[in-house]
């Protein structure tokens, strides 16, 4: 009986060996005219080997246990080949002397921000190199070298900048941090200044409807910020910054590895503006005196074998601002009408957990879960107008990715839950508001692997204040060739406006607030709803040795309902539901070129036509230039980096003021920002720069600044820089 078993085994293994067959071939040294006799040819991890003959020829039985064939010869580099069955091999060994020569590295510097030819959506990826161009300091300032985003001045007293896309301000643009919505509700106005630029690894700017998986709120586009990951971030990073008008910044990053799978990192940020500057002599500080402590701790867990990836973030922010008249002393002047002043104190806690699982056997299938909680608490007063807001937000998103028949047809399906709880005190009136929604989404993407791509998304949500609704979104890409791509997109978005939180600049004015009905649920304001349509064309060409990219974007956003914010009447601000039309049309023409293989240049022209039917008739949106030009040139070398941006802002319509009751048109102006970086060592960067180098200032940014407690006092009509030229120096050190 035992013998039969052996017979079986022998019989079987014989068949096996036979099936493997004979591997033969010739070994050459350096070139195919030089056969190598006596080269060792053997199977990895085995005793089975042979030596090549006088013609470099060898033959060897294929082993079942391994497919790694090793070929070696004295004076040559040893090579390992993968051999899966009987075959003839022609192999050229490289001699060791040539080691330095046998690898020709073909390198091309990647552009720091690039429009994608391949993705279905109109996405611009902005790397951390681009973010460095604006050395200062947080997300709201990092878009100044990017033409897709406009940075506007929001307020002459708070120093806040507002980000716009397609002529519409940031609430209509969805911000996500690692795909979790942020800069919403209470953090809408100051939120971008709560993420230091050095924390950001890259930004993805999507123009148009965007994906359904991050929610139903985006109308004009999405901006996603990827933060530095513990595993890939610097072991140690230090950034010191000082501007001559008294702004200091400190960034410190460090990390620790517990095992190959578990890494943690700590990102700490501190900034302060110590001096009280009043460059235009109106008695008001041009920017607040402020102090911010911002700490983020991250834990990353990765188990590639089992397919798990997880991130846990914990974040704490404390931001204090003091603004108003230069002589303002909160102890003496708070709640009095002697000196106008304001304090904004914000505390924010935030925690997120992300878990991702890729099925190890099925690389195209994955599962993801995201959970986020934040508690935002702002206590503030503006002159005699107190405003407090507390916003607690919970968010959960479950996502499953897989394919239909093959990887050219993928789908994503998931569930989302969001809850926002607001409690506000607006000039003594306590307002509580709760938004809750639960939704499910499905996104199908088709990739012909060549010319045609399509992403179709649909979500179905139930919201306690909107009801049940459907959000469709579609993106189509067609490539005429490798160098020419056209994209179409359309989709809808809805949101419930947090009117006071989003329009906090009304408090730094004497304007009285009008809402349809203060007693009514959400003051009688209806949820906002808009459609967005877009076409873009991207083409690359080469003139001589100069590679050029051209792009044209046409987008239209059309509101079905909008909470109209009406600044037209002197001394008042009114919120009401849209009756009639409201739309934003935008055109962007862009050209990128790399000159002399060294200098990246980018030229853009933008045209905006943003009109709304106000109670007083159809008008262009105030403080919105129709024309903008943008030019950026940058040089990146080993030792030196240089960057300069010129931005031209056309005429803007300014609503009624005391001096010009019918409103007026602002003068067009241009701004130059520039930066120079020197790297004495690869890990040490010293930089110097200037913002508003040409020192352009708005003459009287604050209306009735001499009567700050009157109803005509207004700091919201700002169309140009309040502060003039700003110079800064800094250093970055990393290990």
């Amino acid at each position, binding site marked *: *009986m035992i013998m*039969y*078993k052996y*017979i*079986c085994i022998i*019989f*079987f293994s014989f068949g096996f060996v036979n099936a493997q067959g004979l591997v033969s071939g010739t070994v050459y040294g350096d070139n*195919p005219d030089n056969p190598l006799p006596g080269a060792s040819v053997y199977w990895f991890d085995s005793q089975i080997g042979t030596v090549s003959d006088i013609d470099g020829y060898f033959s060897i039985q294929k082993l079942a246990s391994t497919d790694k064939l090793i070929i070696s010869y004295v004076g040559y580099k040893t*090579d390992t*080949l*993968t051999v*899966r*069955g009987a*075959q*003839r*091999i*022609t*192999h*050229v*060994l*490289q001699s060791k002397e040539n080691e330095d020569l046998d690898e020709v590295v073909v390198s091309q510097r990647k552009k720091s921000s690039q429009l994608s030819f391949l993705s279905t959506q109109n996405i611009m990826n902005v790397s951390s190199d681009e973010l460095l161009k604006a050395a200062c300091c947080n997300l709201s300032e990092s878009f100044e070298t990017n033409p897709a985003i406009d940075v506007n001045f929001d307020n002459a007293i708070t120093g806040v900048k507002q980000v716009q896309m397609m002529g519409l301000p940031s609430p209509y643009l969805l911000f996500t941090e690692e795909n979790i919505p942020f800069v919403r509700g209470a953090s809408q106005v100051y939120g971008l200044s709560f993420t230091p630029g050095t924390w950001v690894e890259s930004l993805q700017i999507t123009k148009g409807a965007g994906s359904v998986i991050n929610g139903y709120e985006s109308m004009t586009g999405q901006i996603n910020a990827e933060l530095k990951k513990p595993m890939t971030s610097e072991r140690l990073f230090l950034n010191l910054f000082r501007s001559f008008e008294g702004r200091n910044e400190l960034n410190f990053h460090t990390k620790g590895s517990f095992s190959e799978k578990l890494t943690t990192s700590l990102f700490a940020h501190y900034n302060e503006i110590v001096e009280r500057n009043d460059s235009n002599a109106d008695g008001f500080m041009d920017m607040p005196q402020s102090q911010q402590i911002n700490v983020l701790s991250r834990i990353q867990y990765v188990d590639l074998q089992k397919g798990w990836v997880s991130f846990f973030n914990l974040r704490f922010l404390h931001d204090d601002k003091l603004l108003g008249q230069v002589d303002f002393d909160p102890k003496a002047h708070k709640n009095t009408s002697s000196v106008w002043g304001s304090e904004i104190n914000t505390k924010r806690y935030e925690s997120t957990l992300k878990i991702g699982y890729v099925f190890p*056997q*099925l*690389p*195209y299938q994955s599962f993801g879960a995201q959970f986020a909680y934040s508690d935002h608490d702002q206590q503030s007063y503006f002159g005699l107008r107190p405003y407090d807001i507390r916003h607690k937000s919970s968010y959960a998103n479950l996502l499953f990715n897989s*394919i239909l*028949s*093959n*990887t*050219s047809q993928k789908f994503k399906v998931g569930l989302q839950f969001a809850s926002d709880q607001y409690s506000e005190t607006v000039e003594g009136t306590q307002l509580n508001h709760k938004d809750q929604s639960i939704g499910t989404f499905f996104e199908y993407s088709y990739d012909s*692997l*060549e010319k045609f791509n399509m992403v179709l998304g649909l979500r179905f949500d139930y919201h306690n204040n909107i009801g049940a609704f459907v959000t469709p979104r579609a993106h189509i890409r067609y490539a005429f060739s490798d160098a020419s791509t056209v994209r179409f997109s359309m989709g809808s978005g809805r949101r419930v406006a947090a009117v006071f939180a989003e329009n906090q600049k009304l408090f730094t004015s004497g304007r009285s607030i009008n809402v349809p009905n203060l007693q009514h649920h959400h003051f009688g304001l209806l949820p906002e709803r808009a459609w967005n349509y877009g076409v873009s064309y991207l083409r690359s060409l080469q003139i001589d040795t100069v590679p050029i990219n051209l792009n044209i974007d046409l987008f239209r956003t059309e509101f079905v309902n909008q909470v109209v914010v009406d600044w037209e009447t002197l001394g008042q601000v009114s919120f009401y539901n849209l009756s009639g039309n409201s739309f934003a049309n935008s055109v962007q023409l862009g050209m990128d070129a790399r000159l002399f293989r060294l200098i990246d240049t980018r030229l853009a022209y933008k045209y905006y036509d943003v009109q709304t039917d106000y109670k007083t008739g159809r008008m262009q949106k105030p403080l919105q230039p129709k024309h903008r030009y943008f030019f950026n040139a940058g040089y990146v070398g080993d030792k030196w980096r240089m960057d300069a941006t010129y931005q031209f802002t056309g005429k803007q319509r300014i609503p009624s003021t005391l001096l010009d009751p019918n409103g007026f048109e602002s003068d067009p102006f241009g701004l130059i920002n520039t930066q120079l970086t020197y790297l004495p060592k690869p890990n040490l960067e010293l930089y110097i720069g200037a913002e508003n180098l040409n020192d352009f200032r708005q003459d009287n940014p604050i209306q009735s600044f001499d009567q700050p407690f009157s109803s005509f006092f207004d700091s919201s009509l700002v169309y140009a820089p309040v502060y003039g030229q700003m110079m800064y120096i800094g250093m970055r050190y990393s290990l």
Partner: protein
Amino acid sequence: MKSLFYVILFCFPVLTFAQKEPTKTDKALIEVLGNCKMCKSRIEKAAIGVKGVKYASWDIQSGQLQLIYNGLKTNVDSIEKQIAAVGHDTEHHAAIEKVYDQLPACCQYVREGQDPKPGQIMKH
């Protein structure tokens, strides 16, 4: 005679096990000759184009093509044939000369049993 019966009896389950029933998610790793990123997209596209192939990923360094396919609908041999049809030699199927010759210059990989021509990319 009786002993032969035992031999067959013993070998049968071993052999059927070795043969393996096709499943909806069969996996295979096959060698495909090629050089560059252009080859990669051509090879993967040809493989995905075969009905029943769910996933194809070709590694430029090793020349290994990772496949996940529905074994009830297709098999490695048909996939290899399709890849050879677009110009890339596999273990069991070689591309016809005419198709190989029409590949772009960077995709002119060194074929089995042929000496490398000047300027051709050598892989080891």
